[in-house]
């Protein structure tokens, strides 16, 4: 499935300045693995040491926080938009 993966500026710097990346996969975890394969410096800021989502970013699949779905095991569909946002905000 082809998806769009958007990064905040603080992370885009680790992806050669790419704020929007097109990727493929059947789950969000697949997509993250594909992208961190291309941009290894992103890996420690997208995944924690256990391979789960890094605690200081929040992932949205379209408009939904993936913690309300199935985390990295959440299936993705053609044309889905994945947005990564720094978690320290608001309140």
């Amino acid at each position, binding site marked *: 499935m082809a998806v769009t993966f958007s990064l*905040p500026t*603080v992370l885009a710097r680790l992806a050669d300045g790419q*704020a*929007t990346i097109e990727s493929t996969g059947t789950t969000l975890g697949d997509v993250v693995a594909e992208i961190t394969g291309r941009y290894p410096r992103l890996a420690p800021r997208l995944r924690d040491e256990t391979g789960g989502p890094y605690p200081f970013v929040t992932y949205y699949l379209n*408009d939904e*926080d993936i913690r309300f779905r199935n985390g990295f095991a959440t299936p993705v569909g053609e044309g889905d938009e994945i947005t990564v946002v720094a978690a320290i*905000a608001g309140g």
Partner: protein
Amino acid sequence: MTTVLDPPSPAPSATRTGPRPLSLACKLCHARHPASASATCEECLGPLEPVYDSARPLPTAATIAARAPSLWRYREWLPFLDDAVVSLDSGFTPLIDAPALARRLGVARVWVKNDAVSHPSLSFKDRVVASALNAALGLGLGTVGCASTGNLANALAAQAARARLPAWIFIPHDLELGKVVGTAVYNPRLVRVRGNYDDVNRLCSQAADRYGWGLVNINLRGYYGEGSKTMAFEIAEQLGWRLPTAVVAPMAGGSLLTKLEKGFREFGEAGLVSGETPRLYGAQASGCAPIVDLVERGGETLVPVVPSTIARSIAIGNPADGRFAAGAIRRTGGWAAGVSEAALVAGIKLLAETTGVFTETAGGVTMAAALALADGGRLRPEDELVLCITGNGLKTVEALQGALPEAPLIGPRIRELEALYGRDL
């Protein structure tokens, strides 16, 4: 195929017209960052906080007491190298003795820290906005904004209007009327967003990244949060330069708890007070209690929730400082309590009837949580307890619909009044 990052469209910016903000450091990895409109560590994405010069001259209690009664009397603990230039008269709200509540809670003393009468917008958010607006001016930012559950919207709209700063204010679409009107009247760019606060917050995070605005609780968050410490400073000063043994405060994003701890600790380090940091107790509505859940469950991983409560001002399902608030509670030996909708309404009424303070729903949560903590044996007979009441009840009158007796209606005739009250008159 990839898309190159669009250069952000910077907001119209002026040269620096405010105090120089302090530089920043990551709360987690301690990496240093220059003063900037950024709240996220470039190294680890942790939160940034201002760095104070530990050798700076500090005032005595007498010096502070002689200053104007505003939050700026504690300027040495606020994140600037120069004097503030706007919002100079916020802070220094009353601390009210509440003996009837002390009896009800079974403790030695209770005081209400009454930010329901905060100037200018009737909530504790005046404190954080005062700090953030000075940071915006000090960084030369021409536009400010926020994501808000209502009180912050009120505070930013009011203070930005006075400072003549354009403000983009984003709120959930279904806020209480009083909070919408109490924002719109100042004529900011008010935007209602379909969704809850967490949806608004996500949008604002992206907006701050793209437009270069100074969103006070997003990219100015490191400076903004420091304003909350002044609530702790005032409590200590108003108690006669000493600390209470326990404090109950509402939790939304969780920042207030962490800043209360920091404020009490800083006054101790400065030698202005002695003794242990008060036990900090956090209050949430059961319909949105992810921090209470974390405290009760233990561990470090906060599980977000979809909020469902009338306490909209604290309805944040994905609190940014949740794990840090839980840490402050654990370090100080406190606890947390979630309360039902009925209990929070009863809390509003109890606070009003016993102290003369009319608080909004978040204050009802705080009052009800204090009752729950007392009933659960978390408070001690010798406790000197402060309840942090953070907002005004006139903003959320909807919460009391059906909860108060209807006033009798009579004609302007003395016999009708006599019939109502009988021979007592």
